[in-house]
Every structure is written in C-alpha cells, then in structure tokens.
C-alpha cells in the first residue's frame, strides 16, 4: 500500500490529505519530501481558485495550492501539475489502458518519487516515450484544472469562502518537471470547457450523481429530418461503453477512472446521453450527492443564467408530471428537497420537448 500515510510531512493540510487518500486507492503515492508549512489562503468575496493561481503565478511562486478536492502545483509561476478528485490522474490513465502495469508505476514512484523525477525516469528507462508522457500529463493537467476551478467559479460564490485552501511554499510534485502551463491559459481553458459542457446540456446535476441507463428516447424522436436527425443519432462506441458501465452506483468521475478516460470527455458524453434521454441519475442519491449543494450550479439555478433561461413549464405539463421533471433536468430546483425530485422524464412528451429545447438552444 501507499507510503503516504507514513510520510505526511509534505501533506499536512487536512483537505489536501483527504483528496490524496481518495485518489490513491491503489497506492501510487511516494514518500513525501520536506516542504515548508502550508499557509492558509484568505478567501474573500469573489475569490476563486483560478484567480488565486493567477495571483501566485504573477508572483512567480513555487509551491502547492491545496483545496478540499485537489491540488495545483506551481513552479516559478507556471502550473506544473494539477490533480482533482474528479479527474483521473496520470497513473490511472496509463494503467487503466494497460500502457504501464501498476507494478512498474509503483516501482518508479518509490524509487524516483523522493527525487521528484518519476516522469523523467520512466522515459529514461524506456517505459514511456517523451511524447506519451507529455501528452498524457498535459491531458491530466487540463482535465483536473477544469474541475478544480469549476467548483468555485461562476455562481459558486457561496462555496468560495469555504475553508481548507492552503498554500505550501516550495512544495513540488513527485512526478517532476514535464510540461508546464501558464496560469491564465489554464484558467481560461477551464472556463471554456465549462461553457462547452453547458452548451451540450445546461445542467450539472448528473456530473456528480450515480448514473443508470434510462428508458431511452420515444420512438418518434429518431425520425426527425435534417439537422434534428443529427442530434438524435444513436450513441457512439464510446458512449455505449459508458452506458454499459452505468450500473446505478458509479458517478461520472468513477466511470472516467474505470475506463481510463478524461473526466471532461466523460462528463461531456454523460451530458449528451442525458440530453438524448439515455442516461439518468439513479434516483435516491445514496452514493455521491446528486444536486445536494456540492455543485453550486445545482443549488442556485441553471448555469450561465444569462444565456440559458430557467424553463417555465406550462401548467398542463405540471399537471401531467407532478414531479416537475423538467425543472429537475435543467437544474432549476431552487430550494426544493433534493430527494423529492425525480431525475428522469417518464413522460415521452416531456422528454421530447426537453430535447427539442436543448437542440434549439445549441443552435442559437
């Protein structure tokens, strides 16, 4: 198992340590190195992790900014590494597909982790090519940043003051230098990805919910001509993989880890499948917390409020679907009891209307 628990001197922040524990179920963590004591980060109104990283970058800082759900590592003002609970890390991406065995990875981490040169050593030993390391590392970095920055951006003001963000000056990641990214570019890309997700399906409700297949679209939905037919085509091979593994317990993050895929691509596919009526939350939210406030955009209305108006269901629809599934699917459930809201649209008319509206919005 991991040595992290026995060597926590580099990771004393409770939040950061919790995040690591969740991420290292297979023991990829090396012994920690010496680092300065972490300083709490003041989180005033309007504070976001993205802004904090940019400020540290402006000071050409080196160290680790740890939050409740992940960590950003800076080296000389550039982001060298990022990890999030919701995104698979480099180890998962490389081992889930069989590119490296877990033993190979663990050995490299234990031998070279203390010297912070795991990546370089894997390339020198011929286990990975430099291109593979750079591509996979960059993919994991942007993927993690997308979710690290997201949880507190936009409408997440309430969570922005959440305690637990610390900065440990001088702390470096054990992977060592691979490719670094500018903080501003990273933040802009994270925001862009969130907008892309919202364009696919303007609700984050399923992003953290256990998923299961749903009944599927009504028969009539597949026969629209022209543009409409394009949006309602059958799921791709990758989407079928997701459907096959959506067992009512796994969240998108768990599916991404299981399949060794980026969390962003998985979330995008989940939202596409939800828009097509093929995937839904598994209902009672017994696993992760579907829309219980962990995601700011579920708690405070639909994301991008200016762009995607909250749906106003006509009275007739309300009568036919007492659970107000329309509001549930678009995240517009202000102050309602989360467990009382069904996460599937059982009435085929409603499902069709939702898809038509999503389609129209996507074309605007």
């Amino acid at each position, binding site marked *: 198992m991991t040595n992290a628990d026995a060597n926590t001197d580099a990771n004393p922040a409770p939040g950061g340590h919790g995040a690591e524990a969740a991420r290292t179920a297979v023991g990829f963590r090396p012994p920690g190195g010496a680092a300065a004591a972490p300083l709490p980060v003041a989180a005033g109104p309007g504070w976001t992790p993205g802004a904090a990283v940019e400020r540290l970058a402006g000071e050409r800082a080196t160290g680790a900014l740890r939050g409740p759900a992940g960590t950003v590592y800076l080296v000389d003002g550039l982001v060298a590494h990022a990890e999030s609970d919701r995104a698979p890390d480099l180890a998962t991406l490389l081992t889930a597909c069989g590119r490296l065995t877990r033993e190979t990875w663990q050995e490299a981490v234990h031998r070279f982790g203390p010297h912070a040169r795991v990546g370089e050593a894997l390339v020198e030993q011929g286990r990975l090519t430099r291109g593979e390391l750079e591509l996979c590392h960059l993919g994991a970095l942007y993927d993690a940043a997308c979710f690290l920055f997201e949880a507190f951006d936009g409408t997440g003001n309430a969570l922005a003051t959440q305690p637990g963000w610390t900065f440990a000056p001088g702390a470096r990641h054990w992977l060592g230098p691979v490719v670094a990214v500018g903080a501003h570019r990273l933040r802009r890309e994270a925001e862009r990805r969130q907008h892309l997700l919202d364009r696919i399906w303007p609700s984050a409700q399923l992003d953290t919910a256990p998923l299961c297949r749903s009944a599927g679209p009504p028969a009539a939905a597949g026969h629209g001509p022209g543009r409409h037919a394009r949006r309602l085509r059958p799921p791709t091979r990758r989407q079928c993989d997701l459907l096959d593994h959506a067992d009512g317990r796994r969240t998108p993050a768990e599916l991404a880890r299981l399949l060794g895929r*980026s969390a962003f691509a998985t979330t995008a596919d989940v939202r596409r499948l939800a828009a097509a009526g093929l995937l839904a939350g598994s209902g009672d939210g017994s696993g992760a917390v579907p829309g219980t406030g962990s995601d700011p955009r579920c708690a405070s209305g639909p994301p991008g409020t200016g762009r995607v108006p909250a749906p106003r269901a006509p009275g007739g629809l309300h009568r036919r679907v007492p659970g107000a599934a329309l509001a549930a699917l678009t995240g517009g459930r202000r102050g309602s009891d989360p467990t009382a809201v069904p996460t599937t649209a059982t009435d085929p008319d409603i499902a069709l209307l939702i898809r038509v509206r999503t389609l129209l919005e996507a074309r605007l």
Partner: protein
Amino acid sequence: MPGIDECLSRAMAIAGARAAGLIDWSSGLALGSVGASPTGDHDTTAAEATDLVRAAVDAATFTAAEDRAVPLQDIILTADSSYHLLCFIDTVFDSRLVLHLWLDRAEGNLAVARFRLQSIAEELVLG
C-alpha cells in the same frame, strides 16, 4: 526521442508548411502551435478544426464500416491556395488528438506532406 515541441518543429520543416498545431479535439484545445494562423489566433484555429474533426468522427457514414476504435487516419481539406491536413494520433492511453498542418499548395507536395505528417505523429507516440 521527440516531445511535442520537437514534433511541431519537424512538421514546420515540411516543404510548404505555413503552420502546425497539436489539437485536443475532445475539447478544442491547442496543446501547441507554431507558424502563422489563418485567423490570427491559434486557439480559434484549434476550436474550428475541432468542429471539422468532430463532424467527421461522429458521422456513421465515415466510421461505421471501420473496425478500429480510431477509425479515421486523417482528414484532408483542399482550399484554393492551401491544404489543411489533420492527422489523427493513436495513443495506447485514451486521448483524442490530431496534428494539424497548414500547407501551401504552390510550395508543398500533398502526398509527401501527408506521409511525413503521419510519421511525425507516430514518432511523437512511439519515440
């Protein structure tokens, strides 16, 4: 063993190359770019090239008859004065990447450039 920057330099060394870029088409992100951009902004180029790639990848017409998980090898777009080559990069780990080459028609040779770009894409992964 080339990294991303080295591969982009090699792509720019292809005769007639105006620009080269590495694009993550799952998100539309430019992971690296060199040379001129048709729009003046490499990020726009990456986003718009992604739209083209997605349109091809998502269309059953182009992929249904193929067996591989990554059914497409490249996309070639012929314009009046230039070509755009989008070469898919095949990695063992999950990724959605293309190498984009903007090629001058008068100075470049399409067949040679396509062949060269494919070997650069392979070198990036295989070393």
